[in-house]
């Protein structure tokens, strides 16, 4: 398979994740969609690495995984704090700053 197929697949997955972030209301599901977008980027990085025949793209994908893990830890902790205060995980209920 040529890397073009993998890049096209990663574009499709990225768009699906973006749609999920836009339409879903549950904060946990929105987080999962962000993870899907990060995974799609990783797939593109690995495809480019195999296209160029070096490993730099794989190293970047590795760093993306590390940053994603840190993001998930902090994001889920924020989610727990919001749930404790407002008893809801819906993004519509956290609207105190709304104009």
């Amino acid at each position, binding site marked *: 398979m040529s890397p073009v197929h993998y890049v096209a697949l990663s574009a499709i997955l990225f768009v699906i994740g973006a749609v999920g972030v836009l339409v879903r209301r549950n904060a946990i599901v929105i987080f999962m969609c962000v993870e*899907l977008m990060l995974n799609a980027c990783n797939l593109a990085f690995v495809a480019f690495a195999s296209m160029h025949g070096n490993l730099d793209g794989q190293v970047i994908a590795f760093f993306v995984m590390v940053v994603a893990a840190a993001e998930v830890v902090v994001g889920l*902790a924020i989610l727990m704090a919001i749930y404790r205060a407002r008893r809801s995980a819906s993004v519509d209920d956290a609207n105190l700053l709304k104009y």
Partner: protein
Amino acid sequence: MNHAHVLASGTNTDEVARETIFWILCVASIGAALAMILVRRAVHCAMMLAVVMLALATMYAMQGAPFLAFVQIIVYTGAVLMLFLFVIMLIGVSSEDSVTETIKGQRLAAGLVAIGFFVILILGVGHAALGPATPATAANGTDNLSGLATLIFTTYVFPFEVTGALLITAALGAMVLAHRERTTPRPTQRQLAARRLESGHMAPDPPSGVYALHDAADRPALLPDGTTSDLSVSTVLAPRGVAEEPPSVRPRKEQDAITAEGGREPAPSGRADA
């Protein structure tokens, strides 16, 4: 495709098999991703995300990135997804997403934006000069793992150290955010014992699901509507005259006073007056 290229070089059947696997994984991952944004329950979303991640891990392995494939399975499918499931269990498994649109026409707008974005992305990919996979150069080291290690600890050593600082900051941030201050002092063991003595109910409480004021074998169980269930008392006890008459539903203190008058100790079991 350095590693896989070496493995797959040679016959045409390898290429056919890899293409077949790619298309199967492609359909599986896109289908699971679509299902992820369509199903309403968060747990089902997590399961669909696991399918996508496993498919992507297989694709990494096919593209000559075995290290990333295993990191994907261990870190993403193992750790991150389990963290998601933990939070889903804490927040409430049964909570479903609301179907109502809070902003008018949001789904339609999101769909249009997604289509436009997808067209731009595909046009960009189509116009980019994407060549076929090239075999690994000698600079990559002997294999994938040592090549990655050389890169991480030479060229990318500063970003690597910065990610260490990032991980420590994230752990501290999670601890600060998840921490909750006590508003009342923690009760000591002595206070807990005194509270139990005052309650007049010394024995341990019956386990959850048992509707009873006492946990002796001859006391009938209380049904959820407040009546007693004779089925819960052993049929052997009634002929021997030890079975308690079904008590009416009274507050616990009053009932304990009655049993004390009757000369029956409120011991849990093993009575001698049979």
